[in-house]
């Protein structure tokens, strides 16, 4: 019974983790500019996250080590600093974007500038973490965040041509604006496959004391949670394709995003959108802050945990404190949340090799995983992702320069 509850909870938090400022913005931009043509990128993104989450969860359940633990122990400190620094940097940018997402939602609701809202949001997020109430925030935001299901309702109400949507799952290149097309593809992949997500997932498995009896549950949670999350992102893309494309609207400002739901669902749609954006970004922001603190603490051998009290875990608590407040700076200084989001997602995509490639070694290590090492299918999936990650690394910067504007 408890496990069924855990599975449901895991799936709901998985969905909440998937949908945040990055996936909403990139999916909306993709739908607005290219119709259903980039649906394949959302699908590959969800697939990638499923594979990496399942493996990090399995590694944690069998070896009793988080992904960060295993990376430092197997590859040593000299190698470990590379993923440590890279993941912290891109997560920091994503964190700043999420804070921007919450502040943007509040700005739309109140007409008060997001530059002020971001400060309030940051203090509230910090205070909640400092008080050790992360589990409440996590389940609260995941539950409330389900309001994002409104995207699915909207997508169905807009009567898309489902055959064409399915056609978008096969990659095709548009006649013009190719740089922008591929830049969005990279951003969508970066928005879906975020390292903080699978690092956090493996930490959660340790905190919940998973062992080999949880492997089946791990597969279900990682699979369903992220697949449903991907479906929501796909719904955003479909809605954007129906709402923006016929009107020739390109998403350039955050305020435009509200049209996604206010157009098909009228007055309620606006409220739903504000809530979906605000709540999911808030949940993501707290999760990223903790995920970064976990990564540092695990890498350096400090104690960590979502409910760790600052009085007993000063270094760890100050790590997320510093990170959160620093991440509020770009928004408070007037950086455009949408622009920052696009850059963060592309850089996240470029960062993937340093975490995905080492996993090939870890997931085949019998000392860590005993008989639960990767089988051929897992290795094939991981090899494809590793290859993809290298392509993303090479492509991200030139595409950012050519098609990011």
């Amino acid at each position: 019974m408890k496990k069924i509850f855990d599975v449901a909870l895991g799936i709901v938090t998985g969905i909440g983790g998937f949908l945040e400022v990055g996936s909403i913005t990139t999916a909306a931009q993709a739908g607005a500019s290219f119709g259903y043509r980039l649906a394949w990128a959302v699908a590959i993104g969800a697939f990638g996250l499923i594979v990496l989450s399942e493996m990090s969860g399995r590694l944690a359940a069998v070896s009793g080590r988080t992904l960060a633990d295993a990376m430092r122990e197997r590859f040593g400190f000299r190698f470990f600093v590379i993923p440590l620094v890279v993941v912290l940097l891109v997560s920091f940018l994503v964190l700043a974007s999420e804070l921007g997402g919450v502040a943007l939602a509040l700005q739309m609701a109140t007409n008060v500038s997001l530059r002020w809202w971001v400060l309030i949001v940051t203090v509230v997020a910090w205070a909640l973490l400092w008080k050790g109430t992360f589990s409440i925030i996590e389940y609260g935001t995941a539950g409330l965040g389900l309001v994002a299901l409104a995207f699915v309702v909207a997508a169905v109400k807009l009567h898309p041509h489902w055959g064409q949507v399915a056609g978008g799952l096969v990659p095709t290149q548009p006649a013009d604006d190719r740089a922008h097309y591929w830049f969005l593809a990279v951003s969508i992949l970066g928005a879906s496959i975020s390292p903080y997500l699978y690092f956090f997932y493996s930490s959660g498995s340790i905190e919940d004391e998973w062992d080999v009896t949880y492997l089946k549950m791990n597969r279900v949670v990682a699979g369903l949670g992220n697949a449903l999350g991907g479906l929501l992102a796909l719904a955003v893309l479909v809605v954007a394709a129906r709402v923006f494309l016929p009107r020739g609207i390109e998403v350039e400002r955050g305020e435009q995003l509200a049209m996604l739901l206010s157009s098909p669902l009228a007055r309620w749609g606006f409220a739903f959108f504000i809530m979906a954006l605000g709540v999911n970004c808030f949940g993501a922001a707290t999760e990223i802050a903790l995920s970064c603190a976990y990564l540092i603490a695990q890498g350096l051998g400090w104690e960590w945990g979502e409910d760790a009290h600052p009085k007993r875990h000063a270094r760890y608590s100050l790590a997320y404190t510093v990170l959160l407040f620093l991440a509020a700076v770009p928004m408070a200084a007037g950086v455009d949340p949408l622009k920052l989001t696009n850059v963060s997602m592309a850089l996240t995509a470029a960062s993937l090799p340093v975490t995905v490639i080492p996993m090939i070694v870890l997931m085949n290590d019998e000392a860590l995983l005993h008989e639960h090492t990767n089988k051929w299918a897992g290795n094939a999936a991981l090899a494809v992702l590793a290859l993809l990650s290298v392509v993303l690394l090479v492509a991200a910067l030139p595409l950012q320069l050519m098609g990011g504007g």
Partner: protein
Amino acid sequence: MNLVHDVLDRVVVDRNGQHMGRVDGLALELRDGAPPRVSHVVIGAEPAMRRLARWLGRLAEALGRWTGEATRGPTCVPWEVVTVVGKYVELDVEAEDTSALALELWLREHVVSKVPGT
């Protein structure tokens, strides 16, 4: 025992299971006519940074001197107190009796306790 594979970079815990950091270094004592002996487990930012580059090690050392008592040098624990080498390297000491938690304790006293509402 493979010192790199099985010991270096593992989490160090004290006799109560309190995390003390990771094995950032191991000291070997050279002896005439006898094999080198593992003498100390070394924990600290300076030995860890030193592994990346000599200048980073010096930087960490200088920072340590500058901040004073909080990060006073690496923690060297004699190998004799190691009780188990497994998932963790377990030591028969109290973490608070070593300097491994110096920074943690300093931050608790000088920073965390000053945050309102803590």
